[in-house]
């Protein structure tokens, strides 16, 4: 069931030239975790603030839990939306204790509220220090308090603005998993904003990609990665190699050799063959393969990147497993097992 629906949302800021959010429509299903991904200035945080009621769109409607909350010049004010939000800087109230912070949003009799607050704090892993003030906690603990405060009033949807950006790399993997578990345990619907594709791929059920205010694609991680709808989305998830190719009746001619492909006859002029480093394989034997010279092997621990260049010095990168040994730089063979064909220019 859809819990949140955005229709044709436009938003332009006072002094800005371009729209921050441009004709964006999408829905979020109950219990789902959606990641809004994009570069800075892509409109992802604006979108979050529009859903929260902290900004008002120029056009479009928003419905939450079956109620239209934004339409035309009217909207339900933020304090009546029952939307939970975790801010990037956490925005904990510095003059209130941890417990008081979490109690703030629970509109229940005092005793009942305290039980809920303590349970929520326990859920996020804070079993003590409830009487401390925010500045006495570490960054990671502060984030847990912010999460607890947001989910304690049992909101209809949880919004998180860059929840992982303030954490160091080692802590990040662990926190991502924990937050996912907490959200799934409460069954709450969540939307989070991030600029890091790794956050999105590992945490979200679905991912929406924004670019210059436009929604590019919204889908499950695997589909986005494997079947991007356009070059922007494809490049967003990592570097792709590019081969200029001339189409013939049954294949492509490239500077590394010939690739047999019946698709080629659809194209009249030069095309670009785009492939990810992991979508190619370096092989031993000569055959139906492309050929070039290995100019560099870079070791990354979990994998290696082999740089292969053609006769003119143009090179592509191919990923291999870290155990493979390349004794001598020099002649090498490789083939592509997956690539996208894009019109050149």
């Amino acid at each position, binding site marked *: 069931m859809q819990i949140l629906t955005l229709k044709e949302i436009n938003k332009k800021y006072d002094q800005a030239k371009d729209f921050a959010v441009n004709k964006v429509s999408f829905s979020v299903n109950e219990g789902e975790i959606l990641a809004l991904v994009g570069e800075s200035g892509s409109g992802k945080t604006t979108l979050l603030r529009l859903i929260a009621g902290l900004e008002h769109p120029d056009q479009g409607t928003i419905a939450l839990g079956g109620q239209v909350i934004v339409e035309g010049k009217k*909207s339900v004010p933020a304090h009546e939306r029952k939307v939970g939000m975790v801010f990037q*800087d956490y925005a904990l109230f510095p003059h209130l204790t941890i417990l008081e912070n979490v109690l703030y949003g629970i509109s229940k009799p005092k005793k009942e509220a305290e039980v809920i607050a303590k349970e929520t704090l326990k859920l996020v892993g804070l079993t003590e220090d409830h009487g401390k003030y925010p500045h006495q906690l570490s960054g990671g603990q502060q984030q847990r308090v912010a999460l607890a405060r947001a989910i304690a009033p049992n909101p209809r949807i949880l919004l998180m603005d860059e929840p992982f950006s303030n954490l160091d790399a080692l802590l990040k993997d662990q926190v991502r998993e924990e937050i996912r578990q907490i959200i799934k345990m409460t069954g709450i619907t969540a939307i989070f904003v991030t600029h890091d594709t790794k956050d999105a791929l590992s945490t979200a059920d679905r991912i929406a990609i924004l670019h210059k205010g436009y929604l590019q694609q919204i889908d499950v991680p695997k589909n986005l990665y494997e079947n991007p709808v356009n070059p922007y989305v494809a490049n967003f998830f990592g570097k792709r190699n590019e081969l200029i190719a001339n189409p013939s009746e049954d294949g492509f001619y490239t500077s590394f050799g010939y690739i047999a492909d019946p698709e080629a006859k659809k194209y009249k002029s030069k095309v670009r063959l785009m492939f990810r480093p992991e979508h190619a394989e370096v092989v031993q034997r000569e055959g139906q393969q492309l050929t070039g010279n290995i100019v560099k092997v870079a070791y990354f621990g979990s994998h290696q990147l082999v740089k292969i260049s053609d006769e003119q010095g143009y090179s592509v990168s191919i990923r291999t497993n870290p155990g493979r040994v390349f004794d001598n730089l020099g002649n090498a063979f490789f083939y592509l097992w997956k690539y996208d064909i894009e019109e050149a220019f």
Partner: protein
Amino acid sequence: MDLVKRKFYWWNKWIGYALLILVIVATPIFTILFKLFASPGDSWSHITNNLLAGYFQNTLLLLLGVAALTFLLGVSTAWLVSNYEFPGRKYFEWLLILPLGFPGYIMAYTYVGILDYTGPIQTFFRNTLEITFKGSLIDIMNLPGAIFILSITLFPYVFLISRSSFLQQSKTMQEASFLLGAGRSKTFFKIALPMTRPAIVAGIALASMEVLNDYGTVKYFGVNTFTTGIFRAWFSMGDATTAIYLAAILMVFVFLLLYLESVQRGNRRYSNVNGLSKPTARIKVSSGKQYVYTAICSIIFLVSFLFPFLQLVSWVWLTYAKVMDAQFLLLIYRSFGLAAIAGLAVVLLSVVLLYALRLSPFKWVKSVTKVATLGYAIPGAVIAVGVMIPLLAFDKWIYDTLLTARTAGLFLSGTLFALLFAYIVRFMAVGYNPVEAGFQKIGIHVNEASRLLGARSTKTLRKIDLPLIKNTLLSGVLLVFVDVLKELPLTLILRPFNYQTLATKAFDMATNEMIAESANAALIIILTGIIPIIFLNRMIRKRDL
């Protein structure tokens, strides 16, 4: 399925309150501006024929003289304390700000007393050296005298701002200049001074604003300026329209000054943007030079604060038994009460204005609310006139519509309400700026978080925003309190009949040849004024270090 009530997104009650406050606070200012296009009063031709040229000349000379002298005093001392190490340097950093606590009019008659026949200097010469002067030692009751008095009370503005600017200049910038072969003086004139120019001009602009506001000093010294002209037209000639016209011209003066200041500042940002700059290390010079520097700062401090301060103290010592009666205590109580109410009102209104701005989705609201702070640039006498016109009109309206002649009287004009209203218009900026800084410091996210947790804007203000900016609110009240306590021209025009504040009492006594007695009220004003100065200095130091 539309269960939840939707409202217009741009409206909340705070916007309504803010608009109401803005209209009320801006009314006096715009009244004056509109009157500029009305025809002047009966005595206008008399004024243009006989007085206007003199007003113009005196006001301009006063402005130029004070600008030059405050520049000299302020920049030299600021350069010394921020660049050199010498005995007492640390103390001069705040001692040289203390003159700000001296209202110009008190400084004026204190100096007249010091230089008088019975004053300490002549007495010393007469009794110890047996030299007798004829009349006053130096006649300072003239234009150069007024320039001197206003400069020694106002140079701390230039000192403060340029010191802060000198401290922000990076050490590497000066070192680069030295390495390129420039000496100390060349570095000062070619690098440090030009970089500080926007700050210095801003300081001088502040001082100039105070010069245009001054009534006590020029009145006491018999120098006719626009401000005294307004008083003369209002009180002596009873010609309100002419007073308004003069006030309007003076306001044009002020806006011109503000405009020039903003033009010179332009887009230039001389401060270091990379944030890596280290504060300039102070230079150790030969002990001979050190004593010269200490001497320069000491003399300026003695002349601008310590001498007149001690003079006041000694007068208080002589007269307190006579002056400090129950009536005087009542006067203190009432003055403090009035100033405290004004301070609270200003801060309360500032909070409403700024909270509306905080919640508003529109950027232009910011420039609109700024209108409320215009009063600080406008001389007190002008504001007094601007407050008087609408209140008199209101009284007349009430009289015409509701009442018979028998019960007629003053309802708003000529009451404490008028005075309070004028204080609010004049000192809005003094409370507004700290509150604005306070809100900025805590950021908008705590407010948004509270509202998303279901708290209405009013509850959010009460539970989150206000507790977080408590200290700023207090300092806002304090700053307005002190300004109101020493305010003179506006109070003289708008006070209810026979009503006295410490400031008017001191001024009245001094002009009635009771200088020594007036020192009691003056000393209270000055001592109260020193408190926020020390606060201010701490704030600047914290920002710099």
